[in-house]
């Protein structure tokens, strides 16, 4: 069974994680640009971080047979920081044109300040001009109100709802999102956010369409195997293998395929990677990359 984790911050994870994810069936991931746990104080830090998302991290993932995609955006926490916010917005078009960048994100609200709203709106317009879908982060505090405001901003932006994935849903916010054309993401966490069991209940209640599940694993206490663990929980609850693949592979892939820069058909095939063939038998010698 092929699995796809549509929200995971691999920059903070180890090669052991990549190995475990690949052997659990994960063939592709999306790494959203986010904050690093500590505020960045200058735009140069963003340049290097964004470059690593399309460079070194993609390379690392490939070593384990995992296709790495990413989203680019200014997260809401740092949208409040005048030292970086404007400059990062100016920087984004340069990264949004890159291969493997499959959405603008993760963007949205944190404290729901006017600065956050302005940066959120500006990035929705960037998504339109770059012809990319959008990955939106829901705030952790005042979550239901934050979801309502998020949906308002999306509506005003003119970005089609089917090109928007709203992430970190729970039982309170999901009905609001399901009432729109947006896709609903769920982050399965060891302690907070959502658990596998609650996720299975939501799938029973709301069906499988436009439902997306991720680990959102990062530098905090989190688990990069939450997508495969949700697969197990779904099977244990009586969902078929096809249902599992529908939610945990097809759905996220279909959403990000709207970027035109990701193709589900290419994922999980034996890794015939043209870029490495291109440099010839040469570049791969001695690497023995794992092949699925």
């Amino acid at each position, binding site marked *: 069974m092929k699995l796809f984790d549509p929200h995971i911050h691999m920059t903070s994870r180890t090669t052991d994680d990549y190995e475990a994810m690949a052997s659990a069936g994960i063939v592709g991931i999306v790494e959203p640009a986010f904050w690093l746990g500590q505020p960045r104080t200058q735009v140069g830090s963003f340049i290097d971080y964004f*470059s690593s998302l*399309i*460079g*070194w991290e*993609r*390379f690392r993932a490939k070593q384990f047979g995992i296709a790495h995609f990413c989203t680019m955006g200014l997260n809401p926490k740092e949208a409040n920081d005048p030292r970086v916010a404007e400059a990062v917005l100016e920087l984004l*078009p*340069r*990264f949004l*044109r*890159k*291969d*493997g960048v499959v959405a603008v994100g993760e963007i949205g609200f944190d404290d729901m300040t006017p600065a956050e709203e302005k940066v959120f709106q500006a990035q929705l317009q960037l998504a339109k001009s770059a012809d990319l879908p959008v990955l939106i982060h829901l705030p952790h505090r005042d979550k239901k109100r934050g979801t309502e405001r998020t949906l308002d901003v999306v509506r005003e932006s003119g970005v089609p709802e089917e090109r928007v994935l709203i992430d970190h849903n729970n039982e309170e916010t999901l009905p609001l999102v399901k009432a729109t054309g947006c896709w609903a993401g769920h982050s399965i966490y060891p302690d907070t956010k959502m658990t596998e069991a609650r996720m299975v209940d939501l799938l029973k209640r709301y069906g499988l369409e436009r439902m997306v599940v991720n680990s959102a694993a990062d530098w905090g206490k989190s688990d990069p195997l939450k997508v495969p663990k949700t697969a197990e929980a779904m099977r244990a609850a009586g969902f078929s293998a096809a249902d599992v693949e529908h939610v945990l592979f097809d759905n996220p892939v279909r959403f990000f395929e709207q970027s*035109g*820069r990701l193709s589900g058909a290419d994922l999980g095939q034996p890794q015939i990677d*043209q*870029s*490495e*063939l*291109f*440099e*010839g*038998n*040469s*570049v*791969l*010698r*001695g*690497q023995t990359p794992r092949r699925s």
Partner: protein
Amino acid sequence: MSASLNPESLLPLIQEAVPEPAFRAFSEQLERCRPAWTLAQFLNTFSAAARTLGRYPLRTEHTSVSAGTGDVPLAGLTSDCAARMWLLTALAASVPSELATVLEATYDEGDGLERIAVIRSLALLPFPERFVELARDAGRSNEVSLFGALACNNPYPARFYSELAWNQLHMKAVFLDLPLAQLAGARERDNAELSRMALQYIEQQESAGRRFPPELFLPMAAFPPPGAVAKLLGYLTHAVPELRLGAARALERIRQPRTATFLEERLAVEPDTQVRSTLERSIAALTPPP
């Protein structure tokens, strides 16, 4: 097989390699950029090349593309990389004053494939010596495909690197297990310091019980340090044919009359045809015609 193409000829080769709609989309992007590129337009076209054209191997009998400063091998070139190389050479021809700035932008802002195309283009561009620092940056990468684009099938380092930089590049290629036969111009850049480094690396691997590429015997043999000839004679009888072949080729390069007896003794029992013919050539070169 014909040798070298002009960079302009890359465009028809790309056209032959990719589906018609893809090439039309690329041409339309170029059309929109007339009469003059803006930087953003150039970078958009450059970045989008892989998804616009796809990544199809070029089909050509030509072996390299040349722009006066050196031949760049076409081995393994795909449509996206060729298109990016063509874009850079076209820019160099039309607005030479902008080249350095744009090239730095394509590299600094580039993802892995874009950077590979920049690195493969360097030797095709005017006054390529000004891009040494950019090449050195790629040489510090541990992304094997990027480092490989610099070290393998690329004449740039051999032509423009200092001896120190060349030696470091060569040894890093060894560490990354790249095919040393693809280091373009390597034999012309061999030097005594590299011979010493090669010998010491081989000795270090021997002590650790680890393998080393037999091709490393060649730079070692260029200025054979003390002990090198004896070591090569020892490897002539090694169980692994590749090591015997590497040693035979290195001894052919050294051409020392005192090795003749050893070469003849080995030839008498050598089962491998490649090793045999190398030994025969060496012996013939050492034996004065009657």
